[in-house]
């Protein structure tokens, strides 16, 4: 995934000073959770619009999606290049954006703009194990947790609603305030549901008698 182009304009109602925010996401067993989406949605303030050229890529390569979890601001264009040498049939049945790219040949690169915030689960109808999640958030201030479970965001001081989401669980949103020039640390504990992804088959076995 290419880095998201953050808008440079900040909302007028948020303080001009920046604040550093970090959130550590762990499971109920205390283990760090990677790929969790942490977002700060301004409360009572106008959200700056997404940059006109904001673009993110989710490629199909090696019969997998290039990223399991991708997060974008609403209004971002997402490109789905097929870098495999086989066809794919990319689709989503999710409410925020239902779409389908059938007969999707190698070398093709269709793009879709995701306007409505929410979770969009994307799959391939030929290769059932191919699945990824696109989290469309109504804010430019978001991050994905790393392997240590840490997500870092730099945002203007002000009041926010902290939202934490992961494909296997989410935490109820809560409000917090970022002070000008101060570093704020939060933690989120997720109760992870079992991973029910379709497993990629390794090989077949001939049958017969």
């Amino acid at each position, binding site marked *: 995934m290419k880095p998201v182009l953050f808008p440079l304009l900040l909302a007028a109602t948020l303080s001009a000073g920046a604040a550093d925010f970090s959130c550590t996401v762990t499971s109920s067993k205390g283990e760090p959770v990677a790929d969790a989406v942490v977002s700060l949605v301004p409360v009572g303030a106008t959200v700056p619009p997404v940059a006109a050229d904001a673009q993110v890529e989710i490629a199909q390569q090696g019969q997998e999606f290039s990223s399991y979890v991708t997060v974008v601001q609403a209004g971002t264009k997402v490109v789905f290049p097929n870098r495999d040498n*086989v066809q794919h049939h990319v689709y989503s049945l999710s409410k925020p954006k239902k779409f389908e790219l059938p*007969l999707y040949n*190698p070398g093709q690169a269709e793009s879709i703009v995701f306007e409505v915030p929410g979770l969009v689960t994307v*799959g391939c109808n030929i290769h059932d*194990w191919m699945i990824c999640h696109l989290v469309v958030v109504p804010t430019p201030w978001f991050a994905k947790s790393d392997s240590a479970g840490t997500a870092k965001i730099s945002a203007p001081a002000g009041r926010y609603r902290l939202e934490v989401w992961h494909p296997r669980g989410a935490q109820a949103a809560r409000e917090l305030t970022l002070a000008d020039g101060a570093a704020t640390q939060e933690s989120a504990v997720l109760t992870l549901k079992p991973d*029910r992804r379709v497993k990629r088959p390794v*090989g077949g076995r*001939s049958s017969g*008698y």
Partner: protein
Amino acid sequence: MAHPPTPALNPAGRLWLLGTLLALTAPAQQENAGGWLENLHLTATGTVSWVNNASRTSAVANRKDATTYELALSGTQPKQLARNLLLISSEEISALRVQDFSSADHVRAGARVALQHKFGLGPQATVLQASGGMAYKAADFAGDRGWTAEMGLQLAKRVLPNVRLAAIASWLEHGARSSVFDLDQHSLSFEASWDISDRWSLAGSATRLEGDIVANAAWPVWAQAIGGGFGPTVQTYYTSRPWVKTHIWGPDWVSYNVEADVDLWSVALSFQASDHTALELRKGSAYVINHIGIRYPTDSWSVGVNHRF
């Protein structure tokens, strides 16, 4: 006595069918980008099996157990023809070696096409698949060499993302040089697979097969059967079926063809060692009973490794 060969498919028919299969596989090999080799997805499988009554013999004292080694290499190419229609072409070559009974060894090579219709989107959509295949069996014993044609119809559905059920109806015909090895079989199978975790899977199948099978007997037993020593029913039936001395399972052993009903089941536990490699432990059983009530139970344990390149 040995009946003359009665191939089920004449040579022109076999060539036509193989040509059709190759022609159908061609579009799948001509993707917009990349050549045929680039688009070929290869899987190799190696399996060692310990088979009880590998000789498929009714007389308990004469049954021959064997260890078998099988290597298979297969290539697959999918091609989406329409929104919900997928053509899957595949080719496979396999070699089976039966330890201590080399006349039972064989190499098999063939091609298969499957047309798959998915009723909707997503992994839990129901899938209907019709398939046809053609393979040549180059058996060590010349009489068993010949062409095998297969057709199948499969209805499959994932009831959960990690639980898949399938019902399969299939038909197989093998036209061998010797009519003893000609087969005409049809079967109905039910399969279930459960991905227990990221690495462990459990699969099971139950099959009812009806049709011809090849069984084997030591000469003293066979001589008694066709001589009336086991009664007129056995004598009448066995003398009406093709048989020949093949020596496959021992000196003077006989192979003979009978009509039978077969109940097969198998359970397999597999462990995915990496993204490309899986190990499998399988227990299989076949309960064969021919049309005059003679039984040929067979069962096996096998361990295998699958590798996707």
